[in-house]
């Protein structure tokens, strides 16, 4: 292969790869949370802690506030399902679990957690 053609091919390849890298960086940047999303996550964490303290009603309140700030915050729905499980309402838990599944299926760790939660709900419903 002539050197000129080789150089051309390497350049094109580099451009393509570089564009891919920049694309990746841009995606990482877009993934940076907005102040509203951060506030929503803080409320989600509050909700999680309240659940750990066995206070599902207070937890639901924090999680509702978290949703009002960021309706796409999938973790909220997961913890809402947990809250309803604590309250013994499996059908509500199921509704929120299915929502959590919609939002968290692209996150490997969360996907597993949501799937386990779904199994737990099914098991308890029986």
């Amino acid at each position, binding site marked *: 292969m002539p050197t000129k053609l080789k150089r051309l091919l390497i350049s094109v390849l580099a451009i393509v790869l570089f564009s891919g890298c920049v694309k990746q960086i841009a995606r990482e940047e877009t993934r940076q949370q907005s102040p509203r999303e951060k506030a929503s996550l803080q409320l989600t964490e509050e909700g999680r802690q309240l659940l750990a303290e066995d206070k599902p*009603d207070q937890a*639901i309140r924090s999680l*509702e506030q978290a*949703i009002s700030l960021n309706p796409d915050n999938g973790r909220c729905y997961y913890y809402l399902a947990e809250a309803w499980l604590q309250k013994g309402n499996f059908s*509500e838990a199921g*509704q929120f679990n299915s929502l959590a599944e*919609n939002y968290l299926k692209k996150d490997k760790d969360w996907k597993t957690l949501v799937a386990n939660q779904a199994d737990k709900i099914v098991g308890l419903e029986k």
Partner: protein
Amino acid sequence: MIKKSLIFSTLILLMALIGVIIYGWHLSGKVEGRFSSRRWSIPSKVFSDTMLLYPGQHINQKPFQEKLDRLGYRKVSGLPKKKGGLQTNREGTHIFLYDLKTPWKKRAGFPVHIQFDSNTIKSIVREDNGKSISLLEIEPEEIMLFFGRERESRRLVSIQKVPEHFIHAVLAAEDHRFFQHWGIDPRGILRALITNLRHGAIRQGGSTITQQLAKNYFLTPDRNLVRKFQEALLAIVMELKYSKHEILEIYLNEIYLGQKGSVAVNGIGEAAYFYFGKPVQELSFSEAATIAGLIKAPNHYSPYIDKTACRKRRNSILTAMQSRGWISDAQLQTHTKTPVLTAGYTIYGKQAPYFVDYLAQQLTTLYQPEDLVSLGLSIYTTLDPQVQIAAENALRKELSRLEKKTAALKRKSSDKKLQGAVIVMQPKTGHILAMVGGRNYSKSQFNRITQSRRQPGSAFKPFVYVTGLDTFTPITILSNVPKTYKVDGKTWAPKNFERHSKKQVSVRSALENSDNLATVDLAMQIGLQPIIETATRFGFSTPFKPYPSLALGAFEVIPLELARAYCAFAAGGMMPFPLGLKAVVDENGHVIERRHLKIERLISPSKAFMITSLLRGVVKNGTGRALGNKGIRWPVAGKTGTTNNSRDAWFIGYTPDILALVWVGFDNGDSIKATGAQAALPIWAELMKAIPHQISHKDFRVPDGIVTRMICSDDGKPVVSQNCAKPRKEFFLAENAPPEPRPQGPIQGVFEKLIEGIKDIFNAD
């Protein structure tokens, strides 16, 4: 003879004594009955939701400052040192927060500095420890009180919580021998008698605190000897049956201490907040003396009425306290020099009256009306007062603009005026943030959001389109030519609003431009019964019938049901239960009722997204495109609606965070001579611009099950070659999307990837 008259007198005296004992026993039962039963009627209070603040949040400063004012924050010179203090300067606002007390959270007040960068919160810093705060919750606003006939407001205070200096101030003002006498005080009566004789007029009363309580609690305000006798007897009975502290506690919670508009301020708990904006425990010596001084003549010595008289009276109480040894000389000198600084107050009003009526209707299913005015319940709601005020203002302003623009819309009679209604909801939670049921509540209490039934017109069309999503795609072609339909033996010939419309249109175009003929064509292809089933599933209580006009929104619906149904599109197919009431707390702080968000899956997230995508088109290119000219520059999906002869004008618009429905019309069905885009849409835009704190500006999330294809705008068909001059991206349900175009050559693919990559970099925001 003498002996006889002595026996007679003794008998009479004995009989009188027996009479007094029997009467005293009767009174004893009365006192016991009154004291053991509920002593006071405490009105229930309705609270708004709390407000969340965080750095980076967009906020309109003026409404925010007005909110702080409604919450009772008052401007002070210098940095606020006490709860309720506020100082605003160029750098931002310094606030000494009140305590936050909700069924979910309790937090003591602290000083905070909120810095703004234009209309964005730059930072929130605790001023007592210098720490940054990432999320701050501001206490709820009191939006209404359920008063009984007496219109009394009261906050009960336990005697254990009343500071000693306050008790001393009251005793100094009213009855310094309270702990020495047994209900009536002969020394006090004698002293009052001498004082009054010396001045030749009634200058001093001899009533003890117990007598005052007996008078207020059991007797009419008449002044005669019999009543005075009853008062004395009751006082003795009360002293025999109850401890001094019990009597004092009831007295301090009972006494009348001023007037807040038409509402009486009773008891020291309420008075402490009314005059000084704080609980009794936090009152200073001079503040305690001010309130104690009011007992004699609350409206004469009120610091809100006559500051000089108030100060004079307060100082006389402080002097009396010093003379009894309850305060030192130095304390007297200090406190008599202190100015009387009041907290300021807002007269009880009924904020969000239509919302409160809607709430009251729900509450009456839980509580008796007499309980609401007496049990002192705290009712927590989802209302955002800033959104409520913005909705009321937008409706008022735009209805006036319409009347100015079209003189034919003006009506002389106030009950026939042009009307409007607005409801604002969070689609994911179902929280009702604002509800305006009409233009002027004082003129008409009819709630046009919850009580009216109006034809939705084209605002109903999304329910036709969602029914057809399994078989129709945005590029399916519909017939848009006039047709005649037979209904119950009569002919029905729908028309398009635009006279010159295309004969064939795509599904997307039909919804964007609200083509009636194409929509009826779609409905007839889908079948009317499935559309009725969809509408019923979406929560409409309307008894729909399978008439073709169903597709054009000919059946009347309740606006609240329409707003709720649209929430399902905004919330990825989940329909929320509309929530106004969040919790009810009894006077002891126990939560006795809780309402959480409830949702129901109606359609798949992908179908909900498809409708949202079509309704985004309505706002970008169709009948709702005027929104862009009105300063709405973030992603909105929405639908206009106009009924026959312009009887109703609608606009329902939503983002992922918020949904608002606006209706404009006359109650009697007169034409408003304007479309939904002309009459209702401007109200929506005005409202949204006023509430930046509720809007994230985020775009709608594309869920799984949605694919995109390039469509050629010229023929509306999928792009298959490079010959298409105007390609555009279209969304499809994965299950009925057109096949992907054939793979292109390798070099072309590389460049496309390169261009896509660069595009993505610039589009990333």
